[in-house]
């Protein structure tokens, strides 16, 4: 068959059932991405004879004798297509995984389609941006700016990877061709709870192309947790690479390794497994009851708190006397709130490539937020010296916490160690839903009391967190959920009880906000109810009761000594939202079918996780007078690479392009705890600042010696050091240093303590249709205390993306578990994530503070914008309808069911 791709014609023969997407990738067009492989996300958009299509749905044979254009063929030589230019200028991307498809679609639109982007872009999903930046790009607005030497911070410097992202050249995990690559497919459990009696591999091994079948008999007998933390004992050891007990529908049973995905799939179908089915339990409260099926019959080494009652961990805290506090309250609200499972829906599914190099070292190239911690655990599980393991990632296609887990690296390692061949594993979108992780569903009982004068008297919270079949992140998520959600309020009497409980369902794990969105939803609904009952404006009520610098922060526990008010902007955030909400919202006129209202919510977050969070940056002068650096933290759309470059360029008095960097590779020196807990700027960025400042000093010292002056006579400029009357170009300085045997390099390190607090306040004006239950957002405003904002464009985009993702969880998203324990909606078609039409413009306002701890006064701002959103929306809907909805998401059918009947 003859094919033409990007103007080149050739003969080839795709497999009969092959889709165009994989055919194009096989040909090396790695800009064509897989987000869903089902036509829902648009990441694989290419042109077929000039018409945009989803290449995952096009049979490859249909491209015969037609012209295919991919993102790699969109530019004319070195001249970017105007839409590529526009996405660069507006930075219409974050992780960049959806960007090629986004650009291909946007570039194909006619005028009418451009005038109705809500419809015409609905086939392209972006999980990071919240679409505002994409809208800016398509509209031709420019948001990036050039920075002067030494003045990067505070400016909208463009992401260094931008040119690669918009041309499809940016390499994500699987965008690499490896000779002899073998493919892993996993057979997954059809039962919610069963013991595997036996697995007959014979027929599977007979499938042509299958080279290995791996079962629990092949796996190391070492229990671990997929969750990765600096202190590995944070999580329970309850997971095996392959286990002889399956505890949820979708758990790995066996892995088939073959020379093609087709053969590996066929091998899985040919495996004969004999299961001894065990009783299963899906409800956490039933799981805690005496006599419930025991999901993990494990000893104290596992650190599971109470295996007999399926309790992974608990939290208890009591301060003052809550009964007395409620007794003196004039108003009390008590309610039960439920926040369901949601999926991260990062567009790059979990994936890894593993191989053994010539030196006999295990290499794993993975889509991870935690390469260094994954290396340590792989070494532990497989009994290897950590020096014999390397884990790295290049660009990661979104994470949101989902990649703070070791969910594919272990099986990839096992497969390559057993076969000696390079192997690849790539989750399908369905596997993401049925067998990765979700947010922890929580049932929260909350009771809050206050006096008539608007002073809180007591807060009581009881939390049941469903951790699913494995306890990864179960304990720390519960701990976090029971902390800042109530420690932000000054109240003399508090009592908190929480339980993280196993059930035979898909495991929960780390998710943006790490427990706070769940409990904050309940707390902020209750605060709103109490304020209403008192007749006090809810923002004013919060103003009176939030903690202020100097006051203790008390949740389930008194906040550790290392949490300080590095800066405090909560008062400003409340005022900013208050002011913005007083401005009228611009919207289309509403008929009498629509009820309107407004609501707000606040959240606080520690800027760094507890227990230490480490980062190392190495930086050195390059031969050409530029700088090179290595940073440990990974880039998955959080924009921290830009921040690192800005920080280094500022400290070294140069421009961002002079800073070249590589990152997230354990072959770089030092240690990096990882890109989680919103640490990419405050921890890793601080390490970069320290490294760059140290290098600055070294350059001056050496230049002084070299020029016969003193360091105080020397000044670093862009590309040179001026020493008294002499100017030494940095390239010459490098040469001189080499001759003198001096290394002009420096190192910066941070340990994550002490920590600060950051704040977010969200406000919504909404209209609710009293017939259909549909919700329209008329106004969305978020004020954030991010300390000094290093890159306003990117920080704004983080807030917008957080609001968008949280709106998905507030309005549509729920991973539904059916009566058998199965995930009922494992696809984007049945699990709607926000599309262009679903996300309103959010007005983003920043408090003006400067943190004592973060680089140049910056605080974290990646998870936290998500946290107050559902709560504020609930309060706005309550205001509009008079109904307090206690369960997320606020879907029109559920809203309508509780609306007062008309007439």
């Amino acid at each position: 068959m003859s094919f033409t791709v990007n103007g080149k014609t050739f003969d080839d023969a795709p497999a009969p059932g092959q889709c165009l997407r994989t055919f194009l990738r096989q040909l090396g067009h790695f800009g064509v991405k897989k987000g869903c492989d089902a036509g829902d996300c648009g990441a694989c958009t290419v042109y077929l004879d000039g018409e945009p299509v989803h290449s995952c749905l096009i049979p490859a044979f249909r491209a015969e004798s037609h012209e295919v254009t991919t993102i790699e063929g969109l530019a004319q030589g070195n001249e970017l297509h105007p839409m590529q230019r526009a996405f660069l200028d507006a930075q219409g991307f974050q992780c960049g995984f959806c960007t090629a498809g986004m650009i291909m679609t946007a570039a194909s639109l006619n005028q009418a389609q451009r005038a109705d982007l809500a419809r015409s872009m609905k086939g392209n999903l972006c999980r990071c941006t919240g679409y505002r930046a994409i809208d800016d790009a398509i509209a031709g607005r420019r948001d990036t700016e050039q920075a002067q030497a030494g003045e990067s911070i505070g400016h909208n410097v463009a992401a260094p990877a931008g040119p690669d992202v918009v041309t499809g050249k940016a390499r994500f995990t699987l965008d690499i061709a490896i000779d002899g690559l073998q493919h892993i497919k996993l057979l997954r459990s059809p039962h919610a709870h069963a013991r595997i009696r036996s697995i007959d591999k014979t027929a599977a091994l007979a499938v042509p192309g299958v080279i290995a079948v791996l079962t629990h008999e092949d796996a190391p007998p070492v229990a671990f947790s997929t969750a990765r933390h600096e202190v590995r004992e944070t999580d329970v050891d309850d997971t095996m690479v392959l286990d002889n007990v399956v505890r949820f529908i979708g758990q790995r049973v066996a892995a088939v390794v073959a020379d093609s995905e087709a053969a590996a799939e066929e091998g899985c179908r040919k495996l004969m497994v004999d299961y001894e089915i065990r009783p299963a339990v899906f409800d956490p409260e039933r799981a805690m009851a005496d006599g419930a099926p025991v999901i993990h019959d494990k000893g104290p080494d596992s650190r599971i708190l109470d295996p007999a009652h399926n309790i992974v961990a608990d939290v208890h805290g009591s301060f003052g006397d809550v009964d007395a506090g409620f007794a003196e309250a004039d108003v009390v609200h008590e309610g039960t709130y439920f926040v369901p499972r949601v999926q991260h829906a990062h567009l790059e599914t979990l994936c890894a490539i593993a191989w053994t190099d010539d030196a006999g070292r295990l290499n794993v190239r993975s889509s991870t937020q935690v390469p260094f911690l994954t290396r340590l655990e792989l070494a532990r599980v497989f009994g290897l010296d950590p020096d014999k393991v390397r884990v790295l990632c290049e660009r990661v296609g979104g994470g949101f916490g989902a990649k703070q887990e070791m969910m594919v690296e272990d099986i990839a390692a096992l497969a390559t160690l057993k076969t000696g061949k390079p192997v690849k594993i790539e989750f399908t979108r369905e596997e993401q839903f049925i067998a990765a992780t979700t947010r922890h569903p929580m049932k929260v009982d909350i009771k809050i009391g206050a006096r008539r004068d608007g002073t809180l008297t007591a807060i009581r919270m009881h939390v049941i967190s469903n951790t699913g079949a494995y306890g990864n992140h179960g304990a720390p998520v519960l701990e976090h959920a029971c902390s800042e959600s109530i420690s932000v309020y000054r109240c003399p009497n508090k009592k908190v009880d929480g339980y993280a409980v196993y059930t035979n369902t898909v495991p929960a794990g780390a998710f943006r906000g790490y427990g706070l969105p769940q409990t904050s939803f309940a707390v902020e609904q209750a605060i709103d109810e109490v304020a209403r009952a008192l007749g006090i404006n809810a923002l004013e009520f919060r103003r009176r009761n939030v903690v202020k610098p100097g006051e203790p922060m008390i949740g389930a526990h008194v906040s550790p000594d290392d949490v300080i008010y590095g800066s405090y902007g909560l008062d400003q955030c409340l005022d900013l939202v208050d002011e913005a909400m007083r401005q009228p919202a611009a919207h289309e006129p509403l008929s009498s079918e629509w009820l309107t209202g407004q609501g707000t919510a606040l959240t606080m977050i520690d800027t760094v996780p507890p227990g230490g969070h480490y980062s190392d940056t190495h930086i050195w002068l390059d031969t050409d007078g530029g700088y090179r650096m290595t940073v440990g933290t990974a880039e998955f759309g959080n924009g921290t690479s830009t921040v690192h470059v800005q920080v280094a360029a500022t400290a070294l008095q140069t421009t961002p392009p002079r800073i070249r960097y590589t990152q997230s590779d354990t072959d770089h020196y030092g240690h990096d705890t990882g890109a989680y807990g919103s640490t990419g700027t405050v921890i890793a960025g601080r390490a970069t600042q320290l490294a760059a400042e140290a290098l600055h000093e070294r350059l001056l010292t050496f230049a002084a010696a070299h020029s016969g002056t003193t360091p105080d006579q020397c000044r670093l400029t862009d590309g040179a050091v001026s020493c008294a009357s002499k100017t030494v170009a940095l390239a010459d300085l490098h040469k001189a240093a080499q001759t003198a045997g001096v290394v002009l390099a420096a190192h910066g390190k941070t340990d994550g303590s002490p920590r600060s607090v950051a704040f977010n306040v969200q406000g919504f004006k909404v209209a609710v249709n009293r017939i259909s239950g549909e919700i329209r957002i008329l106004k969305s405003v978020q004020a954030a205390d991010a300390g000094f904002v290093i890159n306003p464009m990117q920080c704004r985009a983080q807030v917008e993306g957080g609001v968008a993702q949280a709106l998905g969880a507030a309005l549509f998203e729920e991973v539904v578990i059916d009566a058998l324990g199965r995930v009922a909606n494992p696809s984007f078609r049945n699990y709607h994530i926000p599309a262009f039409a679903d996300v309103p413009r959010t007005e983003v306002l920043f408090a003006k503070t400067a943190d004592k701890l973060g680089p140049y006064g910056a605080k974290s701002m990646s998870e936290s914008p998500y946290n107050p959103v559902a709560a504020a929306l609930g309060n706005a809907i309550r205001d509009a309808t008079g109904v307090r909805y206690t369960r997320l998401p606020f879907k029109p059918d559920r809203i309508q069911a509780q609306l007062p009947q008309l007439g």
Partner: protein
Amino acid sequence: MDLNTINAVTRPNTRAELTGWRDGDAYVGGGTWLFSEPQPHLKRLVDLTTLGWTPLTAADDGLEIAATCTVAQLDGFTPPPGWTAAPVINQCCRAFLASFKIWNTATVGGNICMSLPAGPMISLTAALGGIALLWAPDGSERRVPVVDFVTGPLRNVLTPGEVLRAIILPASTLTGRAAFRQVSLANYGRSGALVIGTLAASGAFALTVTAATPRPIKLDFDAIPTTANLQARIDEAIPTGQWYDDIHGLPAWRRHMTLHFAQQIRDELAGAAR
């Protein structure tokens, strides 16, 4: 996605080549659903798009839509003057959950043969009195009203090897009036209820309920009924328990919205009749 169990593709050019149906075969129109889910039971694809069927044929007696007509082609159709119900064609095309890029590939026949409750081409053709022309492998043909073609979610009357050749929309409904209402849980999402009313020149009124029910339900009236009558007929035809229940809408909400839309449609068409 790759359909890795497929080991052959046939691309017939004539009806005579549409023979030899066997287990593991599947007809592929656009392929936009077929390639969106694993199909491990399939071994061979039979491509219908190489048969060269004329996508749209408008004649005095109505519109013939080839099963392989793409949604984009149908959406771009320019109706002859007098086909006053034609705007509902575009409204139904826009009711797709999928984006315009899928319209370039997805076919009208594919959507109907998928037989999902929310298939907008089912809504359209059932409401406009469409007749499905089916070709059997033995060379015989039969005609089935679309409203009877779909028997439930992912279920229809096709027998093994039978192929949907075309849908014929009669001029009698195209020259009448149509009113369209649709709602979904998300903006431009999958329909939770899609209701179409038609009013023929004769005064006959029909209400077709789709998406809210497992299969299309068409209620015929000699004249525009009262709202009370209309709603009573709906409740009679779709008793409690017969409203569709899935992630895209609770049954009670689907009924509520259907009754609401029915009243709006009735009032709109009553206005048009005056």
